[in-house]
């Protein structure tokens, strides 16, 4: 888990390898701290090889926190990422909800544009 910064001043939290219930608590804490700290946040999952519903839950909580804090938030999964990682977002219909973008540039633009849209029916 490493934190960097995109050109536009948006924080980027990049994850690698497999993530499940074993790493979810640490990720949740990191997400809470980063959104608390202020700048908009991108979570880049392009180098991950596996994510499960615990990680989706952590991302949904972060999205909710970002909406409440009026901070930008977006997830990045590149088309070259492990197909199973992209698939879990497609299956759960979270691509648009979170939102999930294909490049850091697109994710950065989405996060810079403000908090995720707070749809009334955004529950998965």
């Amino acid at each position: 888990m490493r934190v960097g910064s995109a050109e536009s001043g948006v924080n980027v939290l990049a994850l690698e390898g497999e993530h499940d219930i074993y790493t979810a608590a640490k990720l949740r804490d990191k997400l809470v701290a980063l959104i608390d700290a202020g700048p908009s946040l991108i979570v880049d999952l392009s180098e991950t090889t596996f994510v499960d519903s615990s990680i989706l839950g952590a991302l949904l909580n972060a999205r909710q926190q970002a909406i409440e804090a009026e901070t930008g938030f977006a997830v990045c999964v590149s088309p070259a990422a492990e197909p199973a990682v992209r698939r879990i977002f497609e299956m759960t219909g979270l691509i648009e909800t979170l939102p999930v973008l294909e490049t850091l540039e697109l994710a950065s633009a989405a996060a810079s544009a403000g908090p995720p849209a707070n749809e009334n029916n955004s529950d998965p």
Partner: protein
Amino acid sequence: MKTTVTHEADSGAVLSLTLPAQPVNVAVVRQAMTGLAESLEIDARILADINMAVTEACTNVILHAYSGREENGSVEVEVRPARRRVLVVVRDAGHGFLPRPMQRDTSWRLGLPLIAALADGVEVTGGPDGTGTEVRMTFDLP
């Protein structure tokens, strides 16, 4: 950790794992599943579905099966391949499958719907001796 691997021609179990129901062990189950899939020549896409479904089933055991108890019990994973499909069973000795209110702070309850979407067949039943829960997932092979 108890691991038994045998090779049988019929639909007997070729993998039977019993592990403490702890978060660190879900990756162990995926590793065992991945190794087995190679020897059974299961397609990478189907293996990815099996690994995701088995992860969700094991996570349910860790989060819910032993809640309210001081120590988590164990999770059992069994794999029974047949000619055109593979059966994966995840079993616990917990307090059974109980209706619960939503726990939105940590869980979005995505696990079972994901299993239902990934597997070609799913059965959730009480364990064979009347305690615990058994999730039986089948995956069709091409």
